[in-house]
């Protein structure tokens, strides 16, 4: 038997999802095989997967409903175990949809019901086609090995109050930590630290290479970096003891170095930008270098000096400031709108008003 291809025209790959097996899969598969065998005997040559699955599911439901009905009739008669006549009554209930001879006769004897006759007829006519596979008895119940008690082991329970017929405690080795395990753990920790050190060394050497490629600039830069490199190797800030509160002054938020550099260099001589490529390269690398210095350097004074040197004259209102500078030149001769004397202040008022609105809200 092969599957019919009538489901979908296009062949698309099914996604590789992990298939979850439920407990019922085995019996469902057996039911599919059995139903397929029956259908083959009836005359079908191929099946659609979904159709076969559906029919097998319905056959399983049929068995379930027969069992349910038979159990119900047995209980109704005051019995716990069902017998053949209960099954006949169950079959009658299910066969009422199709109808059978003698269905309207409520007082008929079960042995002479139409269902039984049809069943006998079918059994006599149908040829014997046994199931294709040999099935073990399922579901398989695992034998549970009970834990041995104190008595069985021959031990005495550690505490007096524990009776000897209770299961014994597990071996202490299973839950105590052995010293060898701790050593192994500490070894891995030191290994990790060494790995980290090596990585940082590699990073520093990469940065040095970059600086050397830039070539230009004061040699003091290079020397300064080498001295700092030594410092970093000796005192790794990540391995040092944690600082207490207020032991170290934490700086306020600083403008990114790139922006500050540009503003500072706007006013001084323009010839710096013109020809010398090295300087521009240095400038591009300088912020990165300074960032690295800020991370690894421990002396705060140098950082403060750098900050003071590069503090920009204009703070955060670059766009707004330009507009305000331009407007009074234009509007003062005209004075079209009565209220606009000093738009600079007006804008601030507007901002305040907006802020005020926000506050009220």
């Amino acid at each position, binding site marked *: 038997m092969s599957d*019919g291809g*009538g489901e*979908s025209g296009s062949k698309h790959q099914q996604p590789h999802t992990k298939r979850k097996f439920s407990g019922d899969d085995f*019996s469902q598969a*057996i*039911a599919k095989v*059995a*139903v397929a*065998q*029956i*259908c083959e*005997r*009836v*005359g*079908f*040559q*191929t*099946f*659609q997967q*979904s*159709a*076969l699955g*559906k*029919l097998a599911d*319905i*056959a*399983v439901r*049929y*068995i*379930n409903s*027969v*069992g*349910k009905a*038979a*159990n119900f009739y*047995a209980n109704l008669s005051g019995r*716990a*175990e*069902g*017998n*053949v006549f209960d*099954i006949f009554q169950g079959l009658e209930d299910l066969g009422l*949809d199709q109808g059978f001879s003698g269905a309207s006769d409520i007082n008929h*004897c079960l*042995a*002479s019901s139409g269902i*039984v006759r*049809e*069943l*006998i007829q*079918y*059994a006599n006519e*149908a040829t*014997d*086609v*046994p*199931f294709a596979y040999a*099935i073990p*008895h*399922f579901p398989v119940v695992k034998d549970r090995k009970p834990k041995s008690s104190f008595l069985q082991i021959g031990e005495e329970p550690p505490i007096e109050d524990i009776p000897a017929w209770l299961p014994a405690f597990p071996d202490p080795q299973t839950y105590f930590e052995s010293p060898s395990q701790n050593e192994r753990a500490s070894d891995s920790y030191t290994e990790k630290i060494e790995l980290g050190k090596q990585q940082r060394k590699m990073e520093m050497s990469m940065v040095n290479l970059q600086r050397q490629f830039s070539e230009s600039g004061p040699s003091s830069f290079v020397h300064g970096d080498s001295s700092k490199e030594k410092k970093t190797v000796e005192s790794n800030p990540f391995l040092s003891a944690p600082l207490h509160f207020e032991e170290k002054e934490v700086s306020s938020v600083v403008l990114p170095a790139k922006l500050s550099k540009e503003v500072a260099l706007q006013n001084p001589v323009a010839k710096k930008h013109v020809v010398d490529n090295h300087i521009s390269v240095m400038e591009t690398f300088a912020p990165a270098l300074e960032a690295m210095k800020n991370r690894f350097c421990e002396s705060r004074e140098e950082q403060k000096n750098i900050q003071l040197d590069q503090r920009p004259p204009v703070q955060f209102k670059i766009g707004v400031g330009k507009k305000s500078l331009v407007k009074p030149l234009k509007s003062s001769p005209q004075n079209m709108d009565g209220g606009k004397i000093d738009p600079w202040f007006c804008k601030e008022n507007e901002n305040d008003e907006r802020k005020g609105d926000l506050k009220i809200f």
Partner: protein
Amino acid sequence: MNHNNNFQQSSDGRHDDDAALTEFLSSLMGYTPTIPDELVEHYLAKSGFQCPDVRLNCCLCFCRIRLVAVATQKFVAEVATDALQQCKARQAAVVKDKRDKQQKDKRLILTMEDLSKALREYGVNVKHQEYFADNPSTGMDPASKEE
């Protein structure tokens, strides 16, 4: 007299029925239905139908399980026969239209359409999805797709 005769006849009738039944049940032992016993036993146990241990080769219990197995087999066979008739009718209709061509597909395929039609008579409503789409916007207008 008549009453006695009637009684006798009915008792004979009953006796015949009983005889047929006992004969049938005993013949079940020799008849192996296609649906295996283990499967039927599993699902009967699931639904609550108590059965004593089959492994003890209890004849009565065997009878019950075999009975249910034969009944289920009969049911499935009936449904399959109806589906087969539907399939053949469809193929005959196609062949009727185009008699020039040879008989199209001689293979008989159990399809969802035939199965759902056959099962409808038994009170089982089987509805099948026409198709499955990859994502929610399949088959929609390109304008609404952009949205």
